[in-house]
């Protein structure tokens, strides 16, 4: 069973948001990293990018395919986890411990459209 962490917001594209003030640190869930398999390449996106909810913020490549990472919230990218560029496997090893990019939220109300841990867990079960 994949891990689902309490205290995070989850999107239906399997991203998580960890809120620190008005900055959301965003990564992909354990369910998502397991589905992707070995991640071999990460483009964590660019600092300063202005994104709308649902925009592609980053790109992951597994052995078999490319996978877009969408931002679940609108805002400006304040940081990207460039350590992942040389160590993409960290996402597989610890999906929640490795954010991919961080967004300063322009609209905190967007968070209410995301799922909490138990809703996300139910969502994952329903997908099968």
């Amino acid at each position, binding site marked *: 069973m994949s891990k689902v962490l309490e205290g995070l917001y989850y999107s239906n594209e399997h991203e998580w948001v960890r809120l620190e003030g008005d900055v959301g640190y965003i990564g992909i869930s354990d369910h998502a990293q397991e589905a992707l398999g070995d991640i071999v*390449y990460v*483009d964590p996106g660019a600092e300063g990018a202005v994104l709308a909810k649902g925009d592609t913020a980053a790109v992951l490549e597994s*052995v078999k395919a490319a996978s877009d990472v969408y931002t679940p919230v609108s805002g400006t990218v304040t940081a990207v986890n460039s350590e992942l560029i040389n160590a993409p496997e960290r996402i597989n090893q610890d999906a929640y411990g490795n954010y991919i990019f961080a967004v300063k939220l322009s609209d905190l109300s967007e968070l209410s459209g995301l799922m909490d841990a138990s809703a996300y867990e139910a969502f994952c079960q329903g997908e099968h």
Partner: protein
Amino acid sequence: MEGKKTPLYEEHIKAGGKMVDFCSWLLPIQYPAGIVKEHIHTRTAVSLFDVSHMGEILVEGPGAYDFVQYLVTNDISKIKDGRAVYSPFCYENGTCVDDLLVYPYLNGNILLVVNAANVEKDYAWISKNAPEGVSVKNVSDQWAQLALQGPEAAKVMTACGMDEVNRLGFFGAGFYTFCGASCIISKTGYTGERGFEIYLPPEKAAEAWRLLLKKGAVPAGLGARDTLRFEACLPLYGHEISEEITPLEAGLQYFVKPEKNFIGRDAMLGKPNARKQIGLEFLGRGIPRAGFEVYVNGERAGYVTTGSPSPSTGKALALAIVEGDSPKDGDYTIMVRGKLEPAKIVSTPFYKKNK
């Protein structure tokens, strides 16, 4: 998930296989170890692959040998010395129907082993072209197949009491008793490593699988099978060869013998402006994938036939089919996500075993 199950299906589930639909077969793309670890394990130790989805076609009759010699592009005479022979085979226009292995069978008959994706098509083509007196049978459901691949493969066979197969030369093939059943074993494979392919009755497959694992092999899935063959630059039908690509365009000249007659010979040799295969090391962002466009000196030259990360080299690599006059020292780029990313020509195969 819908799909045909091989005799090893329950074993894959037991081993934690991540099952996918492959040509309507349910097979593991990987096990919990993952594609990269399974790939590396095959190159450094020994892996076991379920390849029962492959097709087998039996060609019988006194005219079988001459017919197969005419059907395929390569010279099959080595089957008389107890060797399997690899060959593409073609339509009249010189493009590929499929590639296959030709095995010496019993009583001068011949067993052809073909790709899972093409079994029905190949069987129809081979039947259609067979002369009077030659019978062609699709015997795919009479055979399961395992591939034991890696430098430790010989040790595993010895541990199974099958040391005799270690005396086979490269591509050697013969009938052996394994797990109490009559099997065909050949020193062949699709990984670029030493190893064996074992053809056995389906009802014996699970027992053989469990024995080989007990004696040291580790299961590996389709994902690793693809990265391994790609590094060794072995063609995959639908990618490096297809109904639109001739064996010469795919870099398979070694397996085309123009001195003999075969279906598609004249068209293939007479093809004007034939394309060629190149190997590329990708130097840009992302991973090049099949179908991505290849440019040389800013002009479109062709496309990627297979692109992938390469676990053994640590690089992103691509095989591509390009215009025949594409300069070797040209400036190569690949279109990835709307941007032209840099690449450079490298020699193939990308990975070669130091024998």
